[in-house]
């Protein structure tokens, strides 16, 4: 009979040591809401699970002196939702994280798990990418920082090297008139997986013109994709800009036909969501 071992180290160094030293299939666990389901269905058969939640700081949110945020990798969606300052600065990130699963799942599901499960449909990932999020990665050679969009390399695959795991997420301080938003399309109203997801962050000048933007789409390609923001920068998101954004978003789609949607449908809806999400982000930044 196969056996499964569980460890819960209390320091990052211990965790890295165990992770780097493990010989059999090993998984890091945050909330476990993906991991346990995959264990149960037999999709994953790890011999060792390393639970990070006993590491001090891995759960929790701090606002840094510069106004940016550090979010522990295993911080649950519920905690993100309760953090007033984070919600005020990054409503898009928080609403994306809070869309994950149900009340029960929210008590556990984390940004790190959502990212490292590496599903193209993960809800928080496009929002965190649009917000300019970065992660701290601990590993045998110390720690390094990386942009969130560099982590997922394909369905179920990440750029993390052996022995590495994510310890924290960072969101930059808000500059000027900035707003973010996330929308997803699902056939139902909850408890569903995104057919298309879209995160948008925009910064406006005093006149309401967009000076910077980051647009990320989920579930339309093997990884999250970035849409070139040139289509809306310099505009006040007028109808012509919206039409350009719609076309640019559709152009970035390389979706598959599957049980959750057709290529044609996903592509069209990506355009729709890009427009709608951008409009919310602009409104939140105080424009239009």
């Amino acid at each position, binding site marked *: 009979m196969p056996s499964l071992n569980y460890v819960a180290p209390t320091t990052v160094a211990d965790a890295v040591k165990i992770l780097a030293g493990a010989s059999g299939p090993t998984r890091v666990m945050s909330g476990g809401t993906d991991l346990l389901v995959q264990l149960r269905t037999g999709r994953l058969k790890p011999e060792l699970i390393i639970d990070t939640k006993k590491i001090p700081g891995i759960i929790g949110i701090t606002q840094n002196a510069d106004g940016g945020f550090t979010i522990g990798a295993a911080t649950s969606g519920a905690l993100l939702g309760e953090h007033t300052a984070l919600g005020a600065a990054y409503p898009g990130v928080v609403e994306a994280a809070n869309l994950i699963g149900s009340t029960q799942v929210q008590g556990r599901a984390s940004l790190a798990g959502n990212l490292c499960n590496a599903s193209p449909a993960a809800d928080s990932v496009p929002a965190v990418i649009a917000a300019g999020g970065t992660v701290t990665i601990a590993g045998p050679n110390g720690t390094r920082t990386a942009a969130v969009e560099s982590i997922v390399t394909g369905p179920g695959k990440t750029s993390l090297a052996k022995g590495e795991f994510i310890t924290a997420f960072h969101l930059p301080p808000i500059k000027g008139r900035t707003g973010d938003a996330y929308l997803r399309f699902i056939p139902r*109203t909850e408890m569903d997986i995104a057919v298309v997801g879209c995160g948008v962050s925009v910064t406006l000048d005093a006149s309401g013109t967009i000076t910077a933007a980051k647009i990320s789409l989920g579930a339309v390609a093997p990884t999250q994709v970035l849409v070139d923001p040139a289509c809306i920068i310099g505009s006040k998101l007028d109808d012509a800009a919206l039409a350009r954004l719609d076309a640019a978003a559709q152009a970035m789609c390389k979706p598959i036909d599957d*049980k959750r949607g*057709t290529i044609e*449908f996903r592509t*069209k*809806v990506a355009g*729709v969501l890009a427009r709608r999400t951008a409009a919310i982000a602009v409104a939140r930044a105080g424009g239009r």
Partner: protein
Amino acid sequence: MTFIGNKSDLRVVGTRPVRPDGVDKVTGRAVFGADAIMSGQITGKVLRSPHAHARIVSIDASKALKLAGVKAVITAADLPNIASEEAFVGEGPMNFRDLSLNCMARGKALYEGHAVAAVAAMTDAIADAALALIDVKYEVLPHVIDVEEAMAPGAPILHDDLFTAGETPKPTKPSNVAKKVRFTIGDVEAGFKAADVIIERRYTTAPVHQAYIEPHACVAAWAADGQCTVISSSQGHFMIRSYCAKLLGIEISNIRVVPAEIGGGFGGKTLVYLEPLALALSKKAGRPVKMVMTREDVFRATGPTSGAAIEMKVGATKDGKITAAQAVMKYQAGAFPGSPINPGLMCAFAMYDLANVDVLGYDVVSNRPKVAAYRAPGAPMASFAAESTIDDLALKLGMDPIELRMKNAAKQGSKTAYGVTHGVIGYEEVLQAAKAHPHWSAPLGKNQGRGFATGFWFNIGGESTGAVFVNEDGTVNVVSGSPDIGGSRASMVMMAAEVLGIDVEKCRAVIPDTSSVGFTNVTGGSRVTYATGMAVTQAAQAVVEDLKKRAAMIWDISPEAVEWKDGEAVPAGANAGGFDPLPLAAIAMKSAKTGGPIGSEVSVNAQGAGPGFGAHICDIEVDPETGHATILRYTAVQDVGRAIHPGYVEGQIQGGAAQGIGWALNEEYIYNKKGLMDNAGFLDYRIPVASDLPMIEAVMVEVPNTRHPFGVRGVGEVPIVPPMAAVGNAIRGAIGIRMEHLPMSPPRIRAAIDGAKMPKAAE
């Protein structure tokens, strides 16, 4: 049978007491199939076919049997190879041989998930490991999933011995078409000639699963002396007994089946999957064997109901009189014959008083799980087609959809295409109530539409046993043979309490095992409150007669001089004597002195179940850019005969509407090219979640069924019949396009709006 239907005389019937099984269910104490335990039990698991269609070349279980902790392995070779024989045990006709082959494949696996072997082992993990060690050699065969592809020449044939019934001359070549059946009244050709407008359309519907929350589960023991005990969750423990006896060659008196609480069935638990396997494993292993399906097993190997392809043509005169209705319906049966094609054909136009009807149907096998009954089996697909077509007819005629239906409504004396003449029915009353409801005239906004549709279901009676036993303290046990799925225990004690004139809290409902109460048909066909309720009512009436005799004995007067009023024996009049009333409890206390225990058990074969009609109004808003349809408001009107417990009747109506909405919008089986199901779980088989639905308003119309003592009509199935057309008609209102394919999922609605080709659905 005396009709006690005068509403003002009723004290208990029509009230809303707390359900007897409620506390156990909300506190988690109720024992469902998977909770049942027999001492010494071990685990049974099934090895299922990974192929849609394959010849089983060989099965080698030797490695599995060598694994420590494995106690038994069975294949079809361990089960009797029984002959073809029609059975009427569950809901609708069934063939014992087919059911046996469905429980365990013999020679050929006919769908992905078809059981090919089973093991019994000490633990779940050992059982899983043993399954992996069973070496099955398959020769994969071409498969066919879609109903029309299965009918096409050259389609892979599932059964070499299946010849189309109802075809003359008798075919010489085997076919996937198990049966061809037709019902005709009048002359449709003449009818269409007399029509000013004709609507002709073609519809397809996806097969949908009953999606009960509790997966199938049982524990079974085959003792050394041949006595068998089964605890399982089902819609009929007598049904389990009958099938196990037949499939395993056991005498009925040697099987005792104990009903567990049931977490939903909707028709899907009116046949067996696990019980015969658990018994056969137990016989070999010498230990009780527990078997529990996973959700994936449930999707891959049980249920669903048929998907269908339906062509329909309806004609009417300018003033809205329907002159002819015609349909060709092709129903998927799954791997074995037995789709609900007959009721489909019968129900399509049963709401209307039509002179000319011609409906032709096909029962077609393909490489999918064998269909099982699902709430009003066969009617919802037929009604989707019929009520969508009628809606288009109203539009073309410029008539109000309710007016058009009023004009053609079936009433007492209307003859149906299948030969039955309607008795007292409430269709017109239902239409009037819908028309008068404020919902029908409420304003609509942009991108919104309102749909209206109606539906019919026969309801059935049949064999039931009910018993009423008076305890020595005056409390009462109400016993019946019907597993309680929709709150029937509440209705049973209420009817007994009404007759006995006592508080409902004094009555306890019990559903004992098959050896402790008389035979009772399955809980299906909306028959329990009607038929079992009739048995319980009659038993309570017999007890009242007995109580009157006992009082007469105590008072030493003639039984005719005693009346039963409000739970007490009273002298019939001044002449009878001046005695103080004798309450039930006082008589019960003295029962030993007046002839012994007081009780009565009554078995009936109830006839005269009144059919039910429903009319649903649905408001929808469509997001034209995403094709997402939001149900804004939903009202379901139904003739319920007489609501014994109105709360549970409303629950039935709401539940049926909710399931119908899921069927309409998102539920479907998605198959890949290999004929394997891609969405065998609730994540991607999308039943509605709570936030998808508004509060569904249930409006009860009461046109009592005079054949039942309290006027009961079945209520559980009618409400799933109208929703798909109601939703489709609302979507048509919102986007101006008729959706001809179910489910009307967002990609399909968006594609329809774009005028693009329908995205290729799974089927």
